[in-house]
């Protein structure tokens, strides 16, 4: 108790690595000029780059520009694979919509009695990219390899929230020429 109430003057704690200023730094004016030199130098350097037709900024001018250094494993967009005749491979079983943790997939099924092999197909297949978390569970859940994720990113920025729903026409644009793991489109008559 005596210690706590003793009226000793406050002693500022001295740290072993306390910052010390030389008199040069203490004058401050010269250090200001050095700092202005640094920032002004960066300004002139970037300005020179802009004026000589190069880019003087680190900013990526999204969405006009996208970064070239996306991760190799990045998968930013869903696609629906297609049958040889261009119709979606999807059988509208709703397993992807069921497993989706963000519940962003909406499927309406259509019935076609003429096509005995695949009577069920989606009439509407939409994904809400404003809520999608890109976990890839839909791809794993799909029994038909009908939905995959590709490296691109969809062009989402717009003034309209509805624009963030990707519709079937957008999802059916995937037309790869060569896929080593799974030749696509599958050969007609092969096991589908």
């Amino acid at each position, binding site marked *: 108790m005596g210690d706590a109430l003793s009226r000793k003057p406050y002693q500022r704690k001295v740290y072993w690595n306390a910052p010390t200023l030389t008199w040069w730094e203490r004058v401050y004016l010269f250090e200001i000029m050095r700092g202005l030199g*640094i*920032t*002004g130098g*960066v300004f002139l350097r*970037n300005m020179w780059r*802009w004026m000589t037709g190069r880019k*003087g*900024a*680190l900013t990526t001018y999204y969405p006009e520009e996208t970064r070239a250094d996306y991760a190799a494993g990045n998968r930013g967009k869903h696609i629906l694979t297609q049958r040889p005749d261009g119709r979606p491979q999807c059988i509208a079983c709703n397993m992807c919509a069921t497993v989706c943790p963000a519940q962003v997939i909406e499927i309406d099924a259509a019935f076609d009695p003429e096509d005995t092999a695949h009577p069920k197909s989606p009439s509407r297949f939409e994904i809400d990219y404003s809520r999608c978390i890109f976990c890839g569970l839909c791809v794993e859940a799909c029994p038909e390899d009908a939905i995959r994720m590709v490296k691109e990113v969809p062009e989402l920025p717009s003034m309209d929230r509805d624009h963030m729903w990707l519709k079937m026409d957008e999802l059916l644009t995937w037309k790869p020429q060569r896929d080593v793991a799974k030749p696509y489109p599958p050969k007609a008559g092969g096991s589908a």
Partner: protein
Amino acid sequence: MIQDLVVYAVFIGYAIGVLMTFGLLLTWVERKQAAVMSDRIGANRAYFRLPFTQVKLVWWGLFHGIADGVKMLLKEDFRPQPYDWYAYMVAPWVVFTPVLLVFAVIPFGGMLDPGRLFPSLADWFGGRTYPMQIARLDAGLLIVFAFGGMTIIGAMLAGWSSSNKFALLGALRAGSQMISYELVMGLTVLGLILIYGTVDLFDIVAQQSGRTGGLPAWGIVYQPFAATLFMAAAIAENKRIPFDLPEAESELISGYFTEYSAMKMGLFMFAEFIEIAIVAALFTTLFLGGYNLPFMTDAGIVFAGDLVLPMSHGAVVVTQLVVFLVKVLAVASFQILIRWSLPRFRYDQVLMFAWKFMLPLALVNLCVTAVLAWSNHG
């Protein structure tokens, strides 16, 4: 008589046009310069679309100033229940008007002889000449300080009438800070007055067109120390970083204009940006030779050994107008460089800096100048 009216109407129109343009342009310069200084691109999304086409004019984001203006005009003018309604309404104008008035005594060109410029009107003007400034007053520099001091009243009124404790704190800070730095500013300029022997700004600029040694006889050559102090004090007077204590966002939301919205808040911002231009114009006039190129007079450029390169009157007038604008823009850009480079002072440091550091230095500078001027003139 009517000739005077015409000429001064043109001068006033030019001055207001220049100030408004600078106010708009400096918002853009500030954004872009800050962006380029920190490896960014800066604001560039506002555009004009040519009617009936998809051609969008971006022009490096120049339209952002207009977009800001439109936004401020169209926003809801939200008002709190002010403590004093009249003071609350009048405060933005008390800040804004003196800032414009200061420019009245700043010369933006040399002696204008309209008769020589437009020979067809020579008879009408009858050989009258006009100094290119709105009001050539004997007390020019004193007017600058008188009107410059009036903005304090606006800041205090705004903070006091807003019935908001942040606004009140900001106003108190603004008052103490601006009064302190006004003193320093006045003292630094006293040295110049001793050297030039006049407070008439037109006369001061005319005296700077000579040469001293191999250098132009600019104020910054005679008084480099005072120029530095003046610049620091002027930035403090303008309440910008590193002296932006009155509106320190992290402490006081927005300081004395916290409770203002829409165009009233826009007036405060606009006044701040115009004041950058005013400070730059004042610095140019006092220390950087005003509207003249180095060694240039109203007759032409005077080289060493009294070799004169004569220039026609029209060329001189155009050169002076352009040189003034370029110098003002350069000094304003330097102020923006300072604003985006330095950290903010603590409040006690600001006042300590004014009273314990800058004021003694300004006094020492004044004493040395006085002794030197006395020994030179006998």
